């Protein structure tokens, strides 16, 4: 059963990722990305990170992809583009492919070779059971609001800066408004 879930989720992830890279229409690429994000959420559940799976669906699929789609529609770039434009001549694509496969080989080698060195053990990860349904959430909360509370406060500062910066960036300047 675990194997079945893993294989299905892996196929979702890889097909979605290939869709993002290969589809010429940006809307299709965004929808393919949703497939990938759901596959990753399923893998999170399989790894018993239930809270993160929910956050993954809500934040990524619910907010970030919708933001992408919103921008695509707003800018009106939802036409299929010509994928054959190759600004750097004909070497760019093979080079990128070689680099990508090389990266995959490198990472796989590192993962496989370092398999036996994974000996460090932490304090344990609580998983959801019938008696203790929110054990995972409580454990993460204790970690975020206990050990990492300073980092948590800094992320709130980061979010405020990002929102203010976006408002400044996307605002129409006065000269533009009078010109148009």
């Amino acid at each position, binding site marked *: 059963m675990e194997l079945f879930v*893993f294989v299905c989720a892996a196929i979702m*992830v*890889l097909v979605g*990722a*290939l869709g*993002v*890279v290969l589809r010429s229409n*940006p809307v299709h*690429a965004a929808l393919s990305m949703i497939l*990938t994000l759901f596959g*990753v959420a399923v*893998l*999170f559940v*399989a*790894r*018993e*990170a239930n809270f*993160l799976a929910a*956050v*993954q669906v809500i*934040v*990524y699929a619910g907010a*970030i992809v919708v933001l*992408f789609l919103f*921008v*695509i529609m707003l*800018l009106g*770039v939802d036409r299929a583009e010509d994928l054959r*434009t190759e*600004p750097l001549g004909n070497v760019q*694509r093979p080079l990128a*492919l070689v680099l*990508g*496969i090389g*990266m*995959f080989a490198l*990472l796989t080698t590192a*993962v*496989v070779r370092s*398999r036996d060195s*994974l000996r460090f*053990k*932490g*304090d*344990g*990860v609580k998983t959801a059971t019938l008696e203790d349904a929110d054990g995972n959430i409580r454990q*993460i909360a204790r*970690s*975020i609001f206990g050990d990492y509370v300073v*980092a948590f406060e800094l*992320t709130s500062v*980061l*979010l405020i800066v*990002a*929102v203010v*910066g*976006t*408002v400044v*960036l*996307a605002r129409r300047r006065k000269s533009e408004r009078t010109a148009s």
Partner: protein
Amino acid sequence: MITAAVVPTTTWYLVLAAGLFAIGMIGVLVRRNPLIMFMCIELMLNAVNLTFVALATELTDINGQTAVFFVLVVAAAEVVVGLGIIVSIMRRRQQATADDLAALKG
């Protein structure tokens, strides 16, 4: 013939994450549409998140899942700023590709 004894180990998850990362990297290198390049960066962030969660379970350490939480927050902030920049560029020049954006001032 798949036997019931085969259970996906942490290595499988890590290899899958490596594949996702490589696909995202190829996408950033190949595509010229800034929006698609952004999506490929999100794919790479997801690969890293998957690695974090897989290792958090393997090493029984909740801090891996905490790290994923922070990556999510930073990714959201990054998308907001990046899309703001893309909107302000595209408003001036429709059909701008990443190669047209050599100058900071649009």
